[in-house]
C-alpha cells in the first residue's frame, strides 16, 4: 500500500494570525515542488505537516490526503511507515558508529536483507554517491561524529537516495553545506517521486515545477514556473557554474586574475 502513491493533497488550514489558507493542492509522482518564504514564514511547519500527514490536528490546521483519502491510522502512525523520507536541516550525526556500521544498521532496519558481499556493495555505493557531492572525501571507517557538516549532509543525502525507497521525499534546505546542490537534487529526485523542498536558493526554487509561497505561517500562493523563468534559470545556472569554477580554483590554491569569473 505504501508503494502505490498516486497523489498527495494539501488542504489549507490557517496562518499564524488565524486567517484561512485558500489552498487545495494535489501533487502527483514526478512533481518537484519548492517551498519558499522568509525565515520563520512556516516552511518547516508545512513539511512537518506533510510528514505527520496532519488531519487538521496540528497548529496549522492543515489536512493532508494520500490518494485523495485521509490515511488509515496504521499508515499514519504505525511502525515501519515508509511513505515519507525526510532530509532535515540537522546536519550532524549524534550516533556512535562508523559510516559503514551506520549504513549497515539503516539497511537492516529498512528490512533490506543482504549477503555480506551485497552489504559491502551497498556501503560502497552510498559512500561513493556521498563523495560525488562533497569535496572532502568520506571513508567508510570514519566515525559519524567526526564528519564535517558538508560530509554529514552528503552522507545523509546519499543514504536517503539509495536506502529510502519512500515515494514522498521532503527536503529542508540543502544549500550552504559545501555540497553540489544540483547533483544532490538529481540523485534525490529519482523517477516517480513526489519531492517537496524548502529552499532559499534561486536555482533550486526555479528548478521546481511549481513553488509554494509562504507568508507568516500561511500558504499565500502557489506559482507554476513559466517560460520566462526557465530562461532565467539557464542564465542563473551559467552564473552558478562560473562561481563554482572560481571556488574550485580558490580551493586548489590558485591565484585568480580579474578574468577568472566568466559566464559562458
Amino acid at each position, binding site marked *: 500500500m505504501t508503494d502505490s502513491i498516486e497523489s498527495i493533497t494539501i488542504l489549507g488550514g490557517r496562518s499564524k494570525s488565524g486567517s484561512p489558507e485558500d489552498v487545495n493542492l494535489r501533487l502527483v509522482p514526478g512533481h518537484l515542488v519548492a517551498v519558499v518564504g522568509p525565515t520563520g514564514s512556516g516552511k518547516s511547519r508545512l513539511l*512537518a505537516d506533510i510528514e505527520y500527514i496532519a488531519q487538521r490536528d496540528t497548529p496549522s490546521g492543515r489536512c493532508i490526503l494520500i490518494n485523495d483519502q485521509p490515511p488509515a491510522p496504521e499508515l499514519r502512525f504505525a511502525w515501519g511507515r515508509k511513505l515519507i523520507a525526510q532530509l*532535515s536541516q*540537522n546536519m550532524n*550525526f549524534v*550516533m*556512535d558508529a562508523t559510516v559503514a556500521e*551506520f549504513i549497515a*544498521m*539503516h539497511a537492516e*532496519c529498512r528490512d533490506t536483507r543482504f549477503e555480506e558481499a551485497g552489504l559491502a556493495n551497498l556501503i560502497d555505493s552510498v559512500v561513493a554517491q556521498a563523495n560525488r557531492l562533497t569535496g572532502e572525501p568520506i571513508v567508510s571507517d570514519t566515525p559519524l561524529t567526526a564528519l564535517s557538516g558538508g560530509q554529514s549532509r552528503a552522507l545523509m543525502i546519499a543514504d536517503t537516495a539509495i536506502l529510502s525507497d519512500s515515494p514522498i521525499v521532503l527536503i529542508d534546505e540543502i544549500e550552504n553545506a559545501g555540497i553540489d546542490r544540483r547533483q544532490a537534487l538529481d540523485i534525490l529526485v529519482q523517477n516517480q517521486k513526489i519531492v517537496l523542498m524548502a529552499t532559499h536558493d534561486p536555482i533550486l526554487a526555479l528548478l521546481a515545477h511549481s513553488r509554494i509561497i509562504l507568508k507568516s505561517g500561511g500558504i499565500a500562493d502557489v506559482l507554476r514556473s513559466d517560460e520566462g523563468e526557465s530562461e532565467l534559470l539557464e542564465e542563473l545556472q551559467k552564473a552558478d557554474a562560473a562561481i563554482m569554477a572560481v571556488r574550485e580554483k580558490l580551493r586548489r590554491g590558485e591565484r585568480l586574475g580579474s578574468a577568472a569569473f566568466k559566464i559562458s
Partner: protein
Amino acid sequence: MKLITVAGPPSSGKTSMLLRVIDWLKEQGLQAGVVKFDCVASKDDERYRAKDVPVLLGLAGNLCPDHYFVTNIEACVRWGQSLELDILISESAGLCNRCSPFIRHALAVCVIDNLSGANTPTKMGPLLKQADIVAITKGDIVSQAEREVFQYQVRKVNSKAEVLQINGLTGQGKERLGALLKQAQDIDTLEGRKLRFSMPAAVCSYCLGETKIGSDYQMGNVKSIAIPDVPRPEVS
C-alpha cells in the same frame, strides 16, 4: 479513574511531552493530574502547577526510588480519586533501570530520546521491555536515518509496544498518545495488584545505612564479582 505509569531517564522529555498530552486531554474534556516521583530534587511540579494541572511531588531521598514509589502509589491513587480526576499520571525518572514502576493493567509508557545513543535501548531492561507504549522524543534534532535506526533498536527490545515519535516542544504526536491514554482501562484500587517486574533482591547492610567498606561490614544479600585467578610468576 485511569492510572498511567510513565517512566524514562532524566531529561528524556517526559514532562514536556506530558504537558502537551494533558493539554490535548483537556480539549477532550478529560481532567488529568500528575504524581512526579524523583530522587533528589525536581522543579517539574511547578511546570504542572503553572498550567493548573493538579500535581503531587514525591522525593525518594535516600530510599530506593522504586520502593518509595510502590509503597506510596496507592495513596496517590486515592488522592487522584478524591480530586475526581479522569486520569492520574505517575511520572518517574528511569532511576536504576533494574526494575520499573510499571503495574499490571495500568497503561505503561516508556519515554526515551533519540540522542541517548543507539545501544541505550538494549541497556534499559524492564523499563523499556515491559512498556505498552514507547514514546521516542527529540527526533527533530537527528536525521531521519538515525531516527529509523534508533526506533529499530527499540523495536528489537520491545516488539509488542506501540512506538511513537513525539516532539515535546511542538507537541507533534500528542494526539496519538492522548488517544491511547484515553482508551486505557479504569482502575478502582491498586490493592492486590501486581508490579510487572519484581524489585531487585535487596537487603544487605548497605541497604540499611552502612557506609563503611570492607568484608567485616557486609551482611545479608552479598554477591561477589567473578575475577579470574591472576597467574603467578614461576619461582625457580
